[in-house]
């Protein structure tokens, strides 16, 4: 595009002052190259009256007009008189609407807090946030139990259709991935166990290893982690986008308890679905282990089953299964807390979904550790 770049030239005026002659296009895409020269002249000290000749310019926009204005202000600060010549009506008008000083807000003052305070403020904030999260979680748990109605209403607490829908979405549709994941986990544990136990000639005990490990710990833990990633994120995103679009506020105004209406069905669905998924995961993992035990160590299915029968008792199954509803509750509550914290922007939705998954997985693992300590204390 044949635009003439902006040019500025300083010359002496006949009346003893100075004259800056501006030519070319003074528009935002053409002033870049001249800017350095312009700023030198802007700072240059000079004597007498200054004339800014704009008769040679071929175009000007707000960027150019602002520079001219800035030049005039700079000269005025130096105590010199600056006048424009050769300007038409609309150019003059454009320059006139420019403010004398840039309306740039003053930069925020430097952080003057002592180092100690600066270092520990984030930690303190984190602890306060953690406390806030805990209160929010308890609030959600309490409100969820309270049911759907805020005011006097005739509706029942939970709508069964909603719960069933969520069980379908969070439970039934998660079955394939849970089955596949658990099958592989069972197979991997069995394979590693078989190789290590072979040194002792105790390959048959791989059944004990897989059975107890899967039923007590791995089954529920990995299923929970998978559900935290799969359904926890979905809950946060759903609740969060409803929050963004004021749907939550609309529910409150109508007289419904948003937590009871939106979160309670999800919590119930998760609490039902997760134990069921854990059972499926356990079956799948034990089957995977059986396949590997047969192919690597020649343990037949009959042997595998009878050994499993001896190794695993009801308490092993129960120890794992008891954890599942608690895991579900924690995942659901963490997801709901994060969802309710979503602000107005898409970015905040993204960061809270991430936080939801990370916190839910952490909480699940921490809870599992807590159960392990608890079980050993009561000799379960």
């Amino acid at each position, binding site marked *: 595009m044949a*635009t003439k770049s902006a040019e500025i030239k300083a010359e002496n005026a006949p009346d003893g002052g100075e004259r800056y002659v501006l030519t070319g296009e003074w528009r935002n895409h053409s002033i*870049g190259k001249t800017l350095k020269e312009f700023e030198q002249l802007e700072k240059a000290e000079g004597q007498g009256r200054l004339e800014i000749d704009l008769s040679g310019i071929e175009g000007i926009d707000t960027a150019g007009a602002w520079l001219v204005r800035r030049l005039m202000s700079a000269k005025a600060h130096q105590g010199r008189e600056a006048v424009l010549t050769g300007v038409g009506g609309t150019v003059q*008008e454009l320059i006139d609407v420019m403010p004398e000083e*840039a309306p740039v807000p003053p930069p925020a003052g430097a952080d003057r807090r002592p180092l100690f305070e600066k270092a520990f403020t984030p930690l303190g904030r984190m602890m306060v946030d953690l406390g806030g999260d805990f209160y929010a979680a308890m609030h959600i748990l309490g409100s969820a139990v309270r049911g759907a109605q805020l005011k006097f209403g005739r509706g029942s607490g939970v709508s069964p259709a909603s719960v069933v829908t969520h069980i379908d979405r969070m439970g039934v549709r998660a079955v394939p991935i849970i089955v596949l994941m658990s099958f592989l986990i069972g197979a991997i544990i069995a394979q590693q166990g078989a190789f290590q136990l072979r040194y002792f000639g105790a390959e048959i005990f791989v059944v004990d290893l897989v059975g107890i490990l899967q039923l007590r710990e791995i089954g529920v833990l990995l299923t929970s982690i998978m559900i935290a990633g799969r359904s926890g994120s979905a809950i946060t995103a759903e609740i969060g986008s409803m929050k963004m679009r004021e749907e939550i506020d609309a529910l409150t105004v109508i007289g419904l308890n948003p937590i009871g209406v939106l979160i309670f069905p999800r919590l119930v669905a998760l609490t039902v679905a997760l134990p069921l998924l854990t059972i499926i995961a356990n079956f799948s993992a034990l089957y995977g282990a059986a396949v590997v035990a047969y192919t690597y160590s020649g343990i037949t299915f009959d042997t595998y089953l009878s050994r499993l029968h001896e190794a695993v008792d009801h308490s092993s199954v129960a120890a794992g299964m008891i954890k599942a509803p608690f895991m579900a509750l924690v995942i659901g509550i963490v997801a709901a807390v994060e969802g309710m914290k979503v602000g*107005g922007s898409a970015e905040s939705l993204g960061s809270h979904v991430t936080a939801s998954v990370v916190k839910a997985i952490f909480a699940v693992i921490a809870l599992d550790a807590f159960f392990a300590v608890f079980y050993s204390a009561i000799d379960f």
Partner: protein
Amino acid sequence: METELDQPQTTEAKSQDDRKVVLSVRDLTVGFGNNLVLDKLNLDIYRGEILGFVGASGTGKSVLMRTVLRLLPQRSGTIEILGVDYATADDEQRVALDTRLGVLFQHGALFSALTVKENIQLPMREYLDLPQSLMDELAYLKLEMVGLPPDAGDKYPSELSGGMIKRAALARALALDPDLVFLDEPTSGLDPIGAADFDALIARLRDTLGLTVYMVTHDLDSLFSVCDRIAVLGQKRVLVEGTLKDMFAFDDPWVQSYFRGKRARSVVTNEQPAHRQVEK
């Protein structure tokens, strides 16, 4: 290639070629599937004018604007903006054209991950070679021009009210000093005072910056106070374009009920012949 793009657009030029066509649409046909939305539509917008675009819901006002902005494909016809037909233009011309259009979307469409200042500077960063300090000054200048306080620059769009979002979005649309600005329902969702302010702002910017404005609106106040010409979309084409007087004279049931309805009458009777005097 000597197109209008190459010529300097001084504001002085405005008076000389007052009737210069900035946007010219010829025989534009747009459709989805078997459904034709626009059929052989013709439209001209002249430099320095504010064209108000009205039409019943579903007549294709948004489709036309989105087609002109090349967000929707056209079946046939030509669209010339500032003398350049996008379909036949080379890459350089397309880029040049992009920098000379500004769009204010109906809901602002500010990028929520960026502050208002960064929103305004985004097109500058992309197209201009300017130092950060000057870009800051220009961004705050634009904010002042649209009537926002400087401290709005560091806020995120989610922290702004509806009216401020419109103003910030207008500031972004004006970031590159475009020649042609598209406004999609600029006053929808604003209170009457805010809407009147916004109309005055658009008129003032048109006068100082020499903008040409394509405004889709349903706001009768805006149509009567700020628009130089009005175009009515209906029956898949521009039914009528012209001044308010032409609208009253045009014999079409929809146009008649729109401009002679109860709401319109109350606006007309109260209306001062205002817009040219706004803040001069």
